């Protein structure tokens, strides 16, 4: 029995990946478990330039979910590559850089920096920076930054442009992370695949609204914020199934996964790998519980490889 699998020319010890923005840069949940037990870690979304993120309240609870409006607070690509990524080297897992942008140019420039960094690391040119980015998760789906990002994820035209241009400068394996707000997520996925994406990652948060009726204003300064967590799981699962049926590249499924049972639903719907995000806020041991729970389920049901159940729905 094994949970191990290979995608993107990378070996994943199991299909369980920490979702971007919910697991910091891999160190933060160490008090609960060793992050090396995870199949991968998608670091907090980075952009070419550092960002302070959004003002006001940044997180709140909704029925079965949460809304966040972090607004891609991050140290910028360069600082990430030199600092946080290097710290991640102590973690024995697949290291994923989640790259966002506001304009086509910032995506391209960000991707170039990652490409250069990886080249240097591979050539041993730099003695200080020894950790490479294993996989880029191209984030065209953040609903919390006004300037864009998500603009590229709504339509096929948007996705086509950014994936094509980034692909030109990036030889590092790349999955594109899609938004449930896409007009037609299946078509966007197919477009990304056509333009050279090595995989599809979905879903990011839903654009959503909460109003403070006493104060008569939105809870979030940015008006809308991103909905995630168990509440969205049934919708995410449907989208993952449809995309998995439509593309040939590996699919990284997520949206409300909090237990091993949830993860298995996504795998049965066709996901090759899965991510857990909000789950860590509900239960800081979530990653560990999901990995162990999948293993237990495989034993119980006598499943030798997850390929046996992948996409059977």
């Amino acid at each position: 029995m094994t949970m191990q699998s290979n995608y993107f020319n990378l070996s994943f010890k199991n299909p369980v990946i920490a979702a971007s923005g919910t697991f910091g840069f891999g160190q933060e949940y160490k008090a609960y478990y060793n992050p090396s037990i995870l199949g991968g870690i998608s670091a907090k979304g980075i952009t070419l330039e550092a960002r302070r993120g959004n003002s006001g309240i940044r997180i709140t609870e909704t029925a079965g979910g949460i809304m966040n409006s972090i607004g891609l607070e991050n140290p910028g690509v360069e600082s990430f590559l030199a600092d946080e990524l290097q710290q991640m080297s102590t973690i024995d897992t697949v290291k994923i850089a989640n790259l966002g942008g506001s304009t086509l140019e910032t995506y391209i420039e960000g991707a170039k920096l990652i490409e250069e960094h990886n080249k240097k690391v591979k050539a041993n040119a730099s003695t200080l920076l020894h950790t490479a980015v294993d996989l880029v998760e191209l984030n065209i789906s953040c609903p919390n930054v006004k300037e864009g990002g998500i603009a590229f994820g709504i339509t096929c035209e948007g996705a086509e442009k950014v994936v094509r241009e980034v692909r030109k400068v990036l030889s590092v394996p790349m999955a594109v992370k899609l938004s449930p707000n896409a007009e037609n997520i299946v078509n966007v996925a197919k477009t990304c695949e056509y333009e050279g994406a090595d995989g599809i990652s979905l879903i990011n948060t839903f654009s959503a609204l909460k109003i403070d009726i006493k104060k008569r204003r939105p809870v979030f300064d940015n008006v809308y914020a991103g909905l995630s967590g168990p509440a969205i799981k049934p919708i995410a699962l449907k989208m993952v199934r449809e995309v998995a049926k439509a593309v040939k590249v590996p699919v990284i499924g997520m949206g409300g996964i909090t237990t091993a049972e949830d993860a298995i639903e996504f795998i049965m719907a066709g996901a090759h790998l899965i991510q857990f995000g909000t789950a860590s806020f509900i239960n800081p041991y979530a990653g560990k519980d999901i990995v162990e729970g999948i293993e237990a389920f495989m034993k119980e049901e006598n499943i030798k490889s997850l390929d046996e159940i992948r996409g059977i729905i």
Partner: protein
Amino acid sequence: MYKIISNQQIGNDFYIMAIEGSFEANPGQFYMLRGIGSFMTLSRPISVFDVGKDKIAFMYRVVGEGTKYFSKLKEGDEITLYGPYGNGYPVSDYKDKKVALIGGGMGIAPLFYLAKQLDNAEIHLGLNSRDLTAEQKQYLGQLYATHAPTTIHIDTDMSEKLDFSKYDAVMTCGPEIMMYKLTKKHENVYVSLEKHMGCAVGACLSCTCDVAGKRVKVCKDGPVFKGSEVSYDDAIKLL
């Protein structure tokens, strides 16, 4: 999961909950409390009110769905909590110094345990006239007075009331506007910031703000900061 020893109502919406278990925490640190399995998606940050042998206590006020749920728990019920998180007040630096502990509203919560750890503290409880009856205030005053001399200020701006020159430090928790004003009154003011929180471990960036010119995480780098280093953008907006 831990067992609840007691959950006492001590004012209109004020409760003190004691939970069984062996805990170690510093004054000013907090725990993330949650109930009902995964139905509640976010845990609630609550400061340590007191730690005893085989138990911990929290003082909280019912403001919304989560704290309302807490208020309904009874002796013997179970509750989930994680922590302690963050850094507390600089107790060791001021162990035997003269320190004013100033709380406003529910901000009085961390001061009880804080006073216990200081040799020479003075407690000032700022309470408004809505929340508590005269008797309840007296009860609270007596409770806090077990650790340090305690005064109760009703609906007053404590930053105008006290002679700050006699203290080596001021440790405070309460409305940002109150803490902001106190910061102007003394060099060594330590404030405890409040932000909505997701992870409490520094992973989600729900709680960042500017302190000493750097982005910090209230959950991990705080919640206690040196008041003079905090950028009070929000509080200043209210002035």
